[in-house]
């Protein structure tokens, strides 16, 4: 009798694990990088970066738990290239982008990499784009990888995205977001589900 119960428990456990894995195949492996030098040239802990535009207005704010700066190496002669050509690995990046006269956009992720003097930031692992809407609702978009160009206030991905808003959910593959005119383009396989209106 005991043996039967034991077998049953094991089978149930295995089925549960199988369901969990198949339901949310998270991105665990980081993006493929070209050969990375062994040691960073600088490590910065708990940093906050503020970027202002020529008129002195705050454009974006980037908080990072740990930032590791690397120089790229010239493959021909193994000599380090200039700092502009380097990149910075980010852990727990938290990016807030500001526009005039509207609520800011906030983007968080597990990992990131800033390149081209921070003009391109690639984020991956539980990427969440959040914004509170004028009518009190919330815009929450989740994906597992996103490329952000903060100075242009643009973001895009070719991955699956889910957007939750006050009375609906949209899923798609591929997305482009313009944070200035607040337009989100969903690029393929779009499915929107809206709750029915409550009876008057």
């Amino acid at each position, binding site marked *: 009798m005991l043996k039967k119960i034991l077998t049953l428990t094991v089978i149930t456990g295995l089925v549960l694990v199988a369901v969990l894995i198949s339901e949310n195949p998270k991105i665990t492996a980081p993006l493929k990088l070209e050969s990375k030098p062994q040691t960073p040239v600088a490590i910065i802990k708990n940093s906050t970066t503020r970027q202002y535009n020529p008129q002195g207005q705050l454009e974006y704010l980037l908080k990072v738990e740990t930032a590791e700066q690397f120089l790229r190496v010239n493959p021909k002669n193994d000599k380090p290239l200039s700092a502009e050509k380097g990149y910075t690995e980010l852990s727990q990046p938290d990016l807030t982008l500001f526009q005039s006269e509207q609520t800011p956009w906030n983007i968080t992720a597990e990992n990131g990499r800033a390149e081209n003097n921070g003009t391109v930031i690639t984020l991956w692992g539980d990427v969440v784009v959040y*914004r509170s*809407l004028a*009518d*009190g*609702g919330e*815009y929450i978009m989740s994906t597992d990888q996103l490329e952000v160009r903060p100075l242009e206030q643009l973001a895009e991905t070719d991955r699956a995205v889910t*957007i939750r*808003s*006050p*009375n*609906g959910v*949209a899923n*798609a593959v591929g997305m482009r977001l313009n944070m200035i*005119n*607040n*337009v*989100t*383009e*969903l*690029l*393929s*396989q*779009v*499915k*929107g*589900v*809206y*709750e*029915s*209106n*409550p*009876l*008057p």
Partner: protein
Amino acid sequence: LPSDRNQPIEIDAERAERNDKTGVTTFIGNATLTQGTLKISADSIRVKQNPSGVDNIVAEGQPAKFQQQPEANEPLVKAEAEKILYSVAKETVNLSVNAQIDRGDGSTINSDSIDYDIRESHSVASGDSGVKIVIQPQTEENSGNEQQ
């Protein structure tokens, strides 16, 4: 069906564009909308939202098509037009530009514009170029049944 109004509205399409300033999301490319037995298919479907939910839906196509089953024991109502405006809360549908509605009972209406009330299953047609109504003659079988 009367219960359609309580069903979620599901829309599928090739791509979409959502504008948070206007509250409008436009679904483009083989767009289909389903809400219970209510179905709309079109080239594009525009959803206008307000804080309390979906305000109205505009479908455009060559033509855009609408169908719904008014009651369980009634035939499908089918309609088409180049533009279909579905006012979700009011449960009304306005068909405009080459509008046609087939009530499944053999009668069809063609007009520039047709207003269809989902709750009452009642339609009103209007148009500069006139309204054309076709009512199929009753077959002998039906008329015989009525005489007994």
